[in-house]
Structures are given as C-alpha cells and as structure tokens.
C-alpha cells in the first residue's frame, strides 16, 4: 500500500477546471516526479471546495495549507518550496480582506468558519472518481446498515424523525414523501434523482454530483429499499458534462463493486441506476414535467394529484428527490436522526447549501445550518459587499424568489421564515445586490427568465408573465403610469393564484417583493422619470456641475453628438435632448464635474 506523506488536493469543480485546474494537476505531478517524490506525495483532484471566488484552490495536507488563485505555472514553486523545503508560498495564501492578515488554514477563514458541511462533506475532500475514498469515509455504510439492520419502515421513520425537508425548493418532508411512495403497491416503482438544476447562478447540485456522486447513488438505493423500487433514474441536464461523466464513472464503479445491481451486499435487494438527460428547460425541475420529459414527452407539468408517488414515471409509483436532499440521507442514517435534528431551526432541520453570488466578496458555495441569519451569510461568510458599497437587497430562492432588504437581514434562514417575509428558500440561489442595482430592472431581469422558461401550457404563466415583463419594461423606459403599478399587483396576484405549476405560482415574487420593499423606486421611475440606481439608461441624464467644471472643453471635444456647449474656462452645459448617454464625457472629465442623475 502507498504511504503518502502528503496529499495535494486540487479542486476539480467546473469553475476551477475552467480556470485550468487540470493543467495545475498535471504540472504538480510532473514537478513531483522530477523531484522523485512520486511515492510520498499524492495528488488528488476533488470536487468543489466552495470558495469559487478565489479558485482554483489547491490544498496541501497534512498541514492543511489552503492556496488560492493558483495558476499552472505556480506548480513547480509549490513543490519546490512547500513540499521539498517545507516553506509556505506566501503569495498564494488567502489574505483576509478585512484585516489584511494572511491565513493559511481554511479553518480560520471567515468563509469556512460558520459552515457545517453535511451535504458537501466529501466535496473538496475525496477524489470523486475513486470509490475507495468514498468507502473509506463510511461510504455505503448507511446502505449496508439499512439493508442488514433496518426495515424499510424503520428507515422511513428515521428520515421522518430527522426532519429532513426537500432541498429542491418545496421543502416537503422527505420521510413523508418516501412513505407515500412506499405505501403504493405496484409491480414496478422508480426512484428519481432530480438533477435538473436550472436557477440562474445556482450550482449546488452540480457541485455535489461532481464532488461526491456516490453519496447520491447510495441515498437513491436507500430510498429504493424503503419503497420497494429496483430502478433509479437520474434526470440531469445535458449542460452538466462533468457531473455526467463523474456520475457515469461512479455508477460503473458501484456496479463493479456490487453496490449497484443484484443482491446488493448479500441482502437480496436489487437496485440499479440509469441516466436521463434533460435539454435544460427550467420547468423540467418541476417533478411532473421532469417525469414527462423522461418519458419522451414534452416537458410540461400536469396537475397534482395524482402525485408521482401514485402515478409517476410510466404511470408507476415514483419518488423524486433533489440531489442535495439525497446527499443528506447517508449521514442521517449513519449518525442518526437525533444527531441531524439538533442542527438547524425548529421546523427546518439540518443545513442548506447556498450558491452565493452577486455583489459580494466571497462568491461561492456554502453550507450553513438552517437558522443562520442572512447577515451572517452575507457579511461573515460572504465577506460583505464588494468594493465597500452599500447593501441593498438579497434575492433568495432563485428567479422566483423575493428581494429582501436591510430589515430582513437578521431573519434566520429557513423554509418558513423566508416564505413569511415574501421570499422563499428555493433550491438555494442567493444573489446579493448593492446600491447600484435598480430594483425595477432586477424584477424585469427575473421576469425575462421566467418568460423564457415558461412551458406555455397555462395561460397566466404563458401570457401573464409576458405582460408583467412588458409593464416593467415600460416603467424602466420611463413610460410607466401609476395605474401600471395597480395592474402589476393584480396581475402578479392572479398569476400566482391561477398558474398550474410552481413556476407560475412563484414567478411574480420578484415583482411583488420589490413593489413591497422598493415602492419608492417604482414611483421614482414613474413620477420623477428617474432611476435612483442610475441603471435605467432611458432615464439617465448626464449633468455637469457648474461648480466643479473648469471649462477645459475636454468633454465637449469628446462628445460624439456635439451636445455639450460652453466657452473655454466657463461651465459647460449638456443638451439632454440630444445626449445619447454614451458616457464618454463623464469618462474624460478630470474634475468629476459630470454625474448621472
């Protein structure tokens, strides 16, 4: 057996791979070879570390040194200095933006301090393409325990007791869902893993599949055992090639080891998994639409009931869970429901993975206990707002979540609290906005997405969202009226009230929450024809401050439409009727005399 003295872990998530983490791996291996250290240093490509803002990440063990923004050409230095000479390469260590301290161990980084990693436990720790490493970390032990020591019902009871709720957005109690599927008797049943992650900016599920595919396979097998299914399907979007590859490898290995297939662990239980590829339609994340898509039909939702637990894939009882939900299962079985349900808030147990994005310092993937406040996530883990700007809003729950403001920052994040303040958990997207973001434009942006992603089946979603978008567009162009605000509200409410599936039932949330929390900003657009954030181009006006203008004529000379007039050494004036708002004058002015109003 190899006796490696040191392990080098390289992030092999999609983000870091895009920043050449494969080349880093190759260079590291070459450098190690050149030093003759092949037997002493093991290089492992793992799943996502989460700290995507600073990728690619390289971590050296056992001293737990966390290198950030590593480039392929740094490999040799890392080996020479850190491995051979035992000296840390200072310039590649993380520097705390607050106090400028160099931090070499990720444990002491603000980004990781508050995190508890359950679903992401193996991401950034094991080689996802090596089943041995998964097994070494208790992999398939939960399945083994279920098959050898537990009945289907005791497994379901354990999951029920754990308080685990669906992580795909619905928040439905997982144990209860399993129980429904278990109670329906049929000759064939299916377990489906929903890996059709489609929220813009969300990559929780992708990272789990890329970093720890076996945890999902194991959980699917456990679920299958409880409901009496022998077939599992993973519906994954074709745009996730790396996740697909790693899943394929994992399925192959699990079959080779006999952890998928017939008579698993000598228990007589049979289970195997197949992949189904989605074409990237957002609505196919809705479970009935997902099932139709798998059946080769148009990806459209149908009314529930019947629930998939009664009539799902091919009309058979089917249990659909999301990737992150599954990833929690083995831990719950291994450590027990009572361990799990101590984490989190009263009605939302465990942790939640979020994809932090937007105007925040530490963009990345985080996993925090339910009940962590938005403030902790944004300021402590996320490192606060970029460039020292002012926080304005945070959008949770993906494109159909709501925009929350300063006053909501101390809300402990869980399913019910977010709903109560007009947003939702969703699958875990979290987009932070600062003072430069126009909330009307933001609502418009999300509507653009839902208009694009509506399947077109029901009228309110197909036409209503389009009309919502048109009204918002009208407002950002400065043509809105106060009546439009009433129309927006009525239409939003009707769309929510009458749409067939979750997409339409939530798509007006960005409109309603911005109307609630940023009504003045709407009014500013409509009444004053002004965009307070200065984002709506149609409403922008470039103005020269006569106090600051020295009359250097530079702006006038650079204006492409000659709309700036003024004598030398005298204050200039912009003719706003001719101005095309290109911004050239403001860029050229050396005296900060030109501003946008």
């Amino acid at each position, binding site marked *: *057996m*190899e*006796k*490696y*003295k*040191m*392990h080098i*872990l390289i992030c092999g998530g999609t983000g870091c791979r895009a920043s050449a983490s494969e080349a880093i791996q190759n260079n590291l291996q070459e450098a190690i070879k050149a030093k003759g250290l092949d037997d002493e240093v093991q290089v492992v490509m793992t799943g996502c570390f989460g700290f995507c803002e600073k990728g690619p990440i390289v971590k050296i*063990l*056992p*001293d*737990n040194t966390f290198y950030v923004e590593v480039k392929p050409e740094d490999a040799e230095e890392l080996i020479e200095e850190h*491995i*051979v*000479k*035992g*000296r*840390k390469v200072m310039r590649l260590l993380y520097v705390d933006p607050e106090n400028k301290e*160099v*931090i*070499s*161990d990720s444990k*002491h980084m603000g980004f990781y301090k508050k995190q508890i990693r359950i679903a992401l436990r193996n991401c950034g*720790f*094991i080689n996802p393409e090596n089943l*041995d*490493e998964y*097994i*070494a*970390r*208790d*992999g*398939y*032990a939960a399945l*083994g*325990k279920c*098959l*050898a020591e537990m009945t289907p019902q005791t497994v379901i009871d354990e999951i029920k007791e754990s308080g685990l709720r669906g992580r795909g957005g619905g928040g439905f109690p997982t144990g209860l869902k399993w129980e429904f599927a278990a109670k329906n008797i049929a000759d064939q049943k299916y377990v489906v893993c929903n890996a059709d992650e489609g929220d813009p900016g969300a990559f929780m599920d992708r990272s789990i599949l890329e970093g720890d595919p076996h945890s999902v396979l194991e959980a699917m097998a456990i679920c299958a055992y409880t409901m009496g299914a022998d077939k599992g399907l993973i519906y994954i979007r074709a745009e996730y090639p790396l996740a697909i590859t790693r899943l394929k490898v994992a399925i192959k290995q699990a079959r*080779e*080891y*006999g*952890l998928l297939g017939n008579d698993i*662990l*000598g228990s007589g239980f049979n289970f195997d998994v197949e992949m189904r590829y989605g074409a990237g339609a957002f609505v196919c994340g809705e479970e009935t639409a997902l099932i139709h898509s798998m059946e080769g039909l148009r990806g459209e939702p149908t009314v529930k009931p019947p629930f998939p637990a009664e009539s799902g894939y091919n009309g058979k009882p089917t249990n659909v869970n999301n990737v992150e939900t599954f990833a929690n299962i083995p831990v719950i079985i291994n450590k027990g429901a009572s361990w799990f349900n101590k984490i989190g808030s009263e009605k939302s147990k465990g942790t939640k993975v979020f994809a932090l994005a937007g105007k925040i310092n530490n963009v990345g993937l985080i996993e925090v206990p339910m009940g962590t406040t938005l403030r902790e996530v944004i300021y402590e883990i996320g490192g606060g707002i970029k460039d020292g700007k002012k926080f304005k809003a945070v959008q949770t729950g993906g494109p159909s979540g709501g925009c929350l403001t300063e006053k909501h920052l101390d809300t402990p994040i869980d399913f019910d609290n977010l709903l109560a303040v007009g947003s939702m958990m969703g699958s875990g997207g979290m987009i932070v906005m600062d003072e430069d973001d126009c909330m009307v434009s933001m609502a418009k942006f999300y509507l653009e997405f839902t208009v694009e992603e509506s399947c077109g089946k029901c009228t309110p979603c197909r036409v209503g969202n389009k009309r919502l978008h048109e009204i918002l567009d009208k407002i950002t162009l400065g043509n809105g009226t106060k009546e439009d605000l009433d129309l927006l509200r009525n239409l939003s409410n009707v769309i929510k009230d009458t749409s067939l599936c979750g997409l339409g039932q939530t798509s007006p949330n960005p409109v309603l929450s911005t109307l609630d929390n940023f009504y003045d900003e709407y009014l500013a657009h409509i009444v004053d024809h002004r965009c307070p954030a200065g984002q709506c181009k149609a409403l922008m006006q470039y103005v020269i401050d006569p106090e600051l203008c020295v009359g250097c004529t530079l702006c006038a000379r650079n204006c492409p439409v000659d709309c700036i007039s003024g004598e030398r050494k005298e204050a200039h004036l912009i003719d706003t009727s001719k101005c095309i708002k290109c911004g050239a004058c403001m860029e050229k002015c050396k005296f900060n005399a030109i501003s946008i109003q």
Partner: protein
Amino acid sequence: MAKVKSLADLKRMKDALQSKMDLREKSNDPEGLVQIKVAMATCGIASGAKEVMEFLIEETAKRGIRTVVTQTGCMGYCYAEPTIEVHLPGKEPIVFGDVNIKKADEIIEKYIKNGELVDGIIPVNYKTLD
C-alpha cells in the same frame, strides 16, 4: 475488483482503506492530534531526517498514537539536525535536536505517551506563522 458481498465485507474494506485517507482525516482536526514537524531542509535530510520522519510515521501508527507528521523547512538549528517539533494538544510545541531513530523512539515513549520531558530540548526563539 472483487465484489463487496456483505456488510462485513464493506466494513473490512473500509478499515483497510481508512489508513489511506487517515492523513486527510487527521488534517481536518490537527489541533486534537499530536503534531510532529520534521525539519527537512538540506541540512536535516543530510543528517538523516528522512529516516527519522519515516520512523515517526510508521511507529506512531503502529503504537496507536494519532499523529500528524509533517515536514517543514529549516528551523535554523543546523547545529542540532535532525530537529523535530512536537506539539501535543493543549501544550506549547517543543523542539528536540539531534534526533536519530533511538532518540525518536524515546520521544515517542516518554514525551508523547507520558508527557515526560527528555534531553535535547532546544529553546524556541521564533514564532510560526499560523
């Protein structure tokens, strides 16, 4: 690869594989473990630090002591190579000089196991980064 045929099989396999991952697991919680740093600069290696390090890794494992043995650069005590720093949980790190296999054995038995100080301690005159 042979199939895993039973839960017992799986457990055996896990136990066998665990040591491979041990280094990673331990580094997850180094504060709770005995941390040994071996100075492995040219002077250290020339004085036999490599053998000492291997001895420490193997023997602590054999004797059931959860340790993290890492290498480090020159500690500056070239007169006393090989040097090792032993950091017991909750105690100040102590640097030992002129550590050969025999000395290493003594350090394990006396200091690491029982906390008894042994000869060869070098007073620390620097601070580590982390």
